[in-house]
């Protein structure tokens, strides 16, 4: 419902149909900024690299506005010449202006006489002086043409400044993303973060683009026009000036009254959209649980609320334009009358009145522009604030200045009394120690939330540990650069992340500059080749985040190929469990086995069957390792692992399984 945002943003200057229109409704209300002035100053600070151009823009604006401002005065002179010609023609030829004035006075027409007396170039008996008119109009034309050219040049340069500044801001934001610690991404909801780096940055750019030029020219015009008005007639200027506070009061009063309605409109819009989203996404449930009628009733109610708030808000905000116009018209009437009286009494020329009328028109327009900009500025600065907040967020600890070199001696990983927690008030991992020997595979099992994923994330140094140390081949990983550390580790995550690009590019992501042979070899080793060949575009098939034409299993295979290609000395696998087609899953299993051979590996296992041959099994619960050992040892111990194992395998097809009758009774598989 951003009609409200749009309408005032469509001033006569016409930058109104920006791309913003495309996201209407998705941008949220023009939130108030918290610290308007400091933030606004910082936005201006973004322009520092363009300082010289900004000064040029300022100069050009002054020139352009001045020229535009003196235009009506020149046209007023032209009117005077015409009017004087008309008056002159009516006078008998041969007499002087002075004689004509006296003759009029003698006839008792004192007012006409006064007016005539004030005229400067009346030649009785002569018509309009077209030479003088031509010169004046040529001058006006010249002034207008130069004004337009200067204004155009200014807009051109300003556009460059704004676009470059926006580009720098986007780059800065993107750069920042790479320096933020992972914990930042965990704490800030993804949608929120996305909205900051996209919508808010975009809003800042739009605001800069729309406000800078208009605000500048509007303010300058106001000053210039006011100056001209005072120069022509201080009395009329006073009359015109009364309209300023009047307009402001009207705008303020309406804005104050419409503000709560707008806020209501936004909240109602949000609620309604939320309801629509839920009703459509949960369509199946709404239908099957028979909630169609309730849902519709709720919708009707919210829709009606929105209608009420929106039509109220639109009406009130729609009032501003007619009312300001009305004030402008009042102005016009007063100036026409007072001006008329003054011309008639010879205190003022007709041309000046005409010029004045034009000025008073030019006066109200920038006034409304400035008034409507305030909304836009508020929302733009609020967006800037959110962007700055991101830019100011704490970064991850920088890499050591003199980093230790990785040793590449087979990938021995050791945890020494490691403690870690995501938040200070809740401990997760405490005093954890473990050793993964080179070439060994370490399986981690345990219920959700036990800290399995956290453990491997610490190896990657995605998070900083609280106490203790982790070493890779004897080197403390916090003394290495992150790049060196991660360069030795390959990771396959549970959520298969592919970027929009071809399958080839997605595999090649594992190793920059990989040759076609290497990519194909990796694809073959991980069973990617098989299904890719069946695709019409083969390796050139474009995939995206959502995966489109690939199944979950196939996507997983691609990420495995990617890890395979990177030839890591240490491997981390977070196994996928969810609805993968069983036949594809066989391939995934085989591929991971290929990948694991001869490498130190950490496997987060969801299916115990896959880890029986692990060299070491860690059973985690609540951040602690409650059991460790090989499959056989742990089964024998009859602890947590054996309970988990039996729960999973009762009724499954496993010939190796100990007597099913011995399994606990609590595990029937289908009700």
């Amino acid at each position, binding site marked *: 419902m951003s009609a409200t945002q749009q309408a005032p943003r469509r001033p006569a200057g016409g930058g109104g149909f920006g791309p913003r229109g495309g996201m209407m409704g998705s941008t949220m209300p023009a939130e108030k900024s918290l610290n308007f002035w400091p933030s606004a100053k910082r936005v201006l600070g973004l322009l520092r690299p363009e300082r010289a151009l900004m000064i040029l823009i300022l100069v050009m604006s002054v020139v352009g506005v001045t020229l535009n401002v003196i235009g009506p005065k020149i046209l007023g002179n032209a009117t005077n010449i015409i009017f004087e010609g008309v008056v002159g023609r009516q006078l008998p030829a041969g007499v002087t202006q002075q004689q004509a004035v006296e003759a009029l006075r003698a006839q008792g027409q004192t007012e006409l006489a006064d007016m005539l007396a004030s005229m400067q170039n009346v030649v009785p008996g002569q018509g309009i002086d077209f030479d003088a*008119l031509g010169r004046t109009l040529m001058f006006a034309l010249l002034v207008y043409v130069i004004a337009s050219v200067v204004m155009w040049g200014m807009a051109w340069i300003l556009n460059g400044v704004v676009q470059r500044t926006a580009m720098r801001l986007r780059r800065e934001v993107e750069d920042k993303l790479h320096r933020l610690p992972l914990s930042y991404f965990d704490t800030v909801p993804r949608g929120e973060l996305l909205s900051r780096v996209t919508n808010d940055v975009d809003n800042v750019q739009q605001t800069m683009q729309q406000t800078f030029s208009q605000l500048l020219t509007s303010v300058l015009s106001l000053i210039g026009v006011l100056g001209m008005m005072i120069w022509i007639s201080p009395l009329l200027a006073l009359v015109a000036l009364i309209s300023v506070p009047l307009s402001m009061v009207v705008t303020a009063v309406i804005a104050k009254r419409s503000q709560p309605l707008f806020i209501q409109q936004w909240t109602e819009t949000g609620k309604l959209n939320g309801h629509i989203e839920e009703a459509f996404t949960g369509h199946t449930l709404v239908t099957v649980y028979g909630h169609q009628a309730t849902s519709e009733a709720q919708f009707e109610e919210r829709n009606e609320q929105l209608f009420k708030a929106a039509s109220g808000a639109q009406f009130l905000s729609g009032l501003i334009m007619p009312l300001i116009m009305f004030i402008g018209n009042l102005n016009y009437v007063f100036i026409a009358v007072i001006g008329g009286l003054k011309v008639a009494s010879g205190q003022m020329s007709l041309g000046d009145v005409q010029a004045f009328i034009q000025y008073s028109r030019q006066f109200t327009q920038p006034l409304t522009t400035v008034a409507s900009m305030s909304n836009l500025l508020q929302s733009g600065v609020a967006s800037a604030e959110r962007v700055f907040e991101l830019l100011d967020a704490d970064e991850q600890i920088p890499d050591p200045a003199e980093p230790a070199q990785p040793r590449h001696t087979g990938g021995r990983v050791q945890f020494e009394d490691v403690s870690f927690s995501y938040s200070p008030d809740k401990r997760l991992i405490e005093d954890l120690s473990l050793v993964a020997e080179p070439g060994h595979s370490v399986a981690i099992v345990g219920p959700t939330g036990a800290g399995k994923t956290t453990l491997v994330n610490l190896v990657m140094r995605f998070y900083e540990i609280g106490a203790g140390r982790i070493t890779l081949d004897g080197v403390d990983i916090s003394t290495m650069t992150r790049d060196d550390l991660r360069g030795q580790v390959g990771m396959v995550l549970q959520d298969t992340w592919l970027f929009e690009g071809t399958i080839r590019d997605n595999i090649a992501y594992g190793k920059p500059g990989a040759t076609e042979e290497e990519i194909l070899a990796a694809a073959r080793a991980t069973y990617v080749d098989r299904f890719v060949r069946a695709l019409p575009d083969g390796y050139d098939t474009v995939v995206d985040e959502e995966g489109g034409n690939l199944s979950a299993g196939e996507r997983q295979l691609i990420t495995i190929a990617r890890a395979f290609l990177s030839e890591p000395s240490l491997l981390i696998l977070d196994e996928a469990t969810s609805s993968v087609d069983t036949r594809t899953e066989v391939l995934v299993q085989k591929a991971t086995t290929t990948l694991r051979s001869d490498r130190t590996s950490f496997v987060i296992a969801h299916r115990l069957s896959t880890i029986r041959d692990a060299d070491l099994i860690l059973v985690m619960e609540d951040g602690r390792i409650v059991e460790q050992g090989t499959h056989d040892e742990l089964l024998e111990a009859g602890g947590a692992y054996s309970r988990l194992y039996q729960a999973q395998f009762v009724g499954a097809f496993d010939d190796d399984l100990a007597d099913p009758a011995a399994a606990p009774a609590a595990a029937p598989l289908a009700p």
Partner: protein
Amino acid sequence: MLARLLTVYLKPYTSLLVAVVVFQLVGTIASLYLPTLNADIIDNGVAKGDTTYILQVGALMLGVSLVQVVCSVAAVWFGARSAMGFGRDVRAGIFTQVGRFSAKEMGRFGAPTLITRTTNDVQQVQMLVLLTCTMMVAAPITAVGGVFMALKQDVGLAWIIVVSVTVLVAAISLIISRMVPQFQRMQKRLDAVNRVLREQISGIRVVRAFVREDEERARFGIANDDLTDTAMRVGRLMAFMFPTVLLVLNVSSVAVMWFGGHRVDQGDMQVGSLTAFLSYLMQILMSIMMATFMLVLVPRASVSADRITEVLGTEPSVLPPVGPVTTTTSRATVELRGATFAYPGAEDPVLRDVSLRCGPGMTTAILGGTGSGKTTLINLVPRLFDATEGEVLVDGVDVRELDPATLHSIIGLVPQKAFLFSGTIRSNILYGKEDATDEEIWDALRIAQAEDFVRDLDLGLDAPVSQGGTNFSGGQRQRLAMARAIVRRPEIYLFDDSFSALDMGTDSRLRAALKPITRDATVIVVAQRVSSVVDADQIIVLDDGAVVGAGTHEQLLESCATYQEIVASQELVEAA
């Protein structure tokens, strides 16, 4: 499409719209009258030195201004009401229509686009209506009226109007026509920048794990440069706009003064008329400029209107029966007789000739690979789809003849993707049974293995659930979704692969807890893994939409090749 949508949905507002036009007409005439009065002041007051006349006409001008503002305010009032009312009605129209859609139509459109169509697209068209009412209507009236009034002042200068209007329209159209494709390109490039950022955020672990920050920076750099490049072009075109318009306006005034001066000199025209003519010309040009800018909205609104009309024009494929059956004879039975389902125009049916029978106390498992038609089969029971051939009977009655309320009241469905509504845990469970007591709710949570974590929440049942349930883990969501079905105590349970997000311990405990309450119910379970279906009373094996085997685990092991294949593949998985 735009025209049709407007005609249909603006019809209830005809009288309001007529009021808008009338008020705009009167208001515009009033504002057009002002320069004439001003000319009158100059020609009959100032030129003759008649101060009384000046004051009289001044009072008249004041009155005219008053009429003008009253009319404008009234027009805004009626305009806002009709535009917002129009938006409300279209939204309601789409919402109701989508509510009648079956899973087939939902699948065809997809929820995200339907949401956009109900919100953004309606917004676009509504905007157009609003701006038309408040500004656009006035533009042609001003233009026509302005021309009329200007000609009344002087016909001899008419050609200046023609020339300046032509030049203005040509200049603006030229700039806009070059700008529109650039805008589209810019939108695409903006999308590209946002896509890279989105990918970087969602794939942050992968980017870091593979040490690809530099490549990502480069990738973003290209997208950023592309965007800046196009934005620069658009901005440059935009920079032309204002000075050009200003130039046309100013040059026309100079022309009026020069040629008007000659006419005044020849006595064809009065000085006051010259001033008035100038005012009218400005008003004409301004209104035309406004109209041109507004016209830019039309293509976009018309695309939106097309998208809206498409939804409104889609007939739901599942329609409620005319004389619905509200009582059933038997209890908790589901029967499919030769049920076939195909999407319209599709070559191969998703399901072909499926027959099965489930009775009370019986658990039926449906097994098959992805795309084998399992979900479609289960969706036939609550009539999310209608079988294109054959029939589906619930409690002995063809579902197409059953009252939808009756049908849905005996079914408890747990969809593949656990979906929670925003609200509280309580409100989500109550979704299954509106009048459930706290005791019943806790009971359902206990069976669904959700009791522990709900008890751990500070607010318990009143703990907030955010939209989509994102503040709960996948497993927790799944268990709450189960509780929602369980609290209904339905005759028929439909579990669409609902156990996959649970870890194995929870899975088995849940199954055990379900057993007593499903003793008299029919349970249909869609599954991927053989291990989760061995105990089922009957297993239906689907392959490519057809039943290739039905029976118990032992029977199928002996008789069904596909089943053996699946079992073998999973044994491989187990052993890998």
